[in-house]
Structures are given as C-alpha cells and as structure tokens.
C-alpha cells in the first residue's frame, strides 16, 4: 500500500474515532516529519497543536492568585493581625520552618508551594478569629467610654464633700 493511501485510511479511521493509540502515534509521527503529502497539509496544524499543548506545564512559581477557599479579607489591622497570627503559630509549634521544608501539624511538607498555601489558610483562620475577638475588645472600649461620665460622679461627689467641709469650717 502506498504511503499516501495508508495515511488517508488512517485519517478516515482517526476522524471516525476508530484509531488505536498506536495508529494515532503513527499519524503524529507522520505530521511531525517534513515529508507530508500536499493533500494532508491541512491537518498538520491540528497534530502540531496537540504536541504543543502536551508540552504546556503548570508553572513552577505560579503568579500570586486569590484562591477561592482562602479568599478571606482581613479588615482590621491587616499587617499586625497577620504578624500576631504568625507569631502564635510559631510559639505553639503549629508552623515551624526549617530550610527547604515546613512542618504543619507535625507533618513535614517538602512542597513549599503547598506548604505556603496551607500556612496561609491557617494564618487566615487565626486572623479571622482574632478579628472577631477584636470586635469584643472594641465593644468593651465603647462601654468603657460610655461609662466615663459615671466614673466622674465619684470625683464630683468628693469635690462637693470637700467644699461642704470647707464651708463648715
């Protein structure tokens, strides 16, 4: 069988979805060569595209992106709360770094990217809880402020008493 005829038959089988992996590899090899029949050139780009896409890699250092599962915004004191959260993690031993790996919950994680994601998620969780705790502190401050006039009552009372005593004398 002539080469052109053979390729035509393989192409018909291919487009009908009836080729085996071996036959498809034969087509890929043919289209990667420089000896392509004129009538087949129209398909060359398709097979080249498959090869190009196959070589596409997940980037080693993916750009910083907001992962939906850890997309939590810290509204109060963002830098300080993150620093506090990191300090707590370091103090409690939840998150320990040592060179090229990270230990999280007692597990050594060598993949720095994954480790950072997990650490970030933990920091976010703690920041979120700190944030809610800060709300209580803020409420306490508000109460304290509203109680300030009452605290002055005692001072005024003492002043009046002093004035009375002065008058008596």
């Amino acid at each position, binding site marked *: 069988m002539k080469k052109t005829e053979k390729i035509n038959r393989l192409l018909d089988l291919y*487009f009908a979805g009836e080729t085996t992996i071996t036959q498809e590899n034969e087509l890929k090899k043919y289209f990667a060569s420089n000896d392509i029949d004129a009538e087949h050139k129209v398909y060359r780009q*398709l097979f*080249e595209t498959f090869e190009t896409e196959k070589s596409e890699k*997940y980037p080693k250092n993916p750009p910083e992106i907001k992962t*939906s599962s850890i997309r939590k915004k810290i509204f109060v004191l963002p830098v300080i709360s993150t620093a506090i959260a990191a300090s707590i993690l370091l103090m409690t031993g939840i998150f320990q770094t040592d060179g090229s790996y990270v230990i999280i919950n007692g*597990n050594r994680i*060598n*993949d720095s990217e994954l480790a950072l*994601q997990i650490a970030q998620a933990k920091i976010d969780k703690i920041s979120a809880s700190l944030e809610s705790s800060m709300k209580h502190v803020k409420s306490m401050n508000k109460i304290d402020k509203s109680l300030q006039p009452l605290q002055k009552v005692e001072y005024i009372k003492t002043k009046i008493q002093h004035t009375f005593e002065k008058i008596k004398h």
Partner: protein
Amino acid sequence: MNTKQFNNRILKHADRIYRLAKSILCDEHAALDAVQDLNLKLWEKRSELDKIENITGFVLRSMRNLCLDKLRRKHIENELQDDLEYSESDPYSKLEKKDMATQATTLINRLPELQRTVIRMRDVEGFELNEIAEITLLTENAVRVNLSRARQKIREQLLEN
C-alpha cells in the same frame, strides 16, 4: 497518605490537571486557581486517598468536577450581571486573544465542554477510551461517539477554511 506519597502520587499530576482545567475553563488564571484549590482540598483529605485504586483517574475526575462547579457558579454570576445590564467578554475569545491561538486551538476551544475534554484527553494526554470513560463518568461507547463528533467537526472546519 504521607507527604512523600502525596507529592509522588498527587502533585505529579499538576501539569495534566492544569491543562485539563485550562481546557474546561478557557482561562489561564482560573486554571491556576483551580489547581491550587484542588491540591488544597486533596491535602485536607489525604488520609482517605489511600483507599482509591486509580488515583490518576480520581484526580482528573475531581479536577473536572471542580471546574464544572466553577463554570456553573460563573454562569449564575453572569446571569445576575446580565440582569444588571453588564456584559463580560466571551471566555473563549479572551483565551484566543491571550494565547495567540492557532486555528486548531480555536476550533477545539469552540467545541462543547465534553467534546473538547474528550479530544484533549485522547489526543493530548494519550488516554485509552476506558480511562476517559472513568474520568468523565461516561460509557466507553459514549466517549467514542463524543470523540468522533469532536474530530469530525474539526475536520469539516479545517477543510472549509
């Protein structure tokens, strides 16, 4: 599954799941996001992963499901945006512009999601039909039909141009 096993059995599929996510979502950044989402979810459930026999199939199936969920959410968001008379450019045309895509890439990206997933799993990743069936939860015959339809559409359009 410990960290080493997780690295060897899960993270080694990063390239494949990234390509799959990019094919389904037609958006590079959304695909990167999806890979991180999936890795994080799998890490959290790593103790259960030992029970899975075909881990490659499981990881790719999980990635496809995650991407389809994202597309569904996006679709709902777009519907809401349409109500507000706001329109965003078509994700396919965005991808085409960004990648300076070849004509063939454009034709593949314009196929329905299932057909472009099937054709890429076969022609880019080199999976057997039964493996694609396991990932897409279709029968082997349904995979063959989708593959054939996808390839025939591309052939027709290549010959038209």
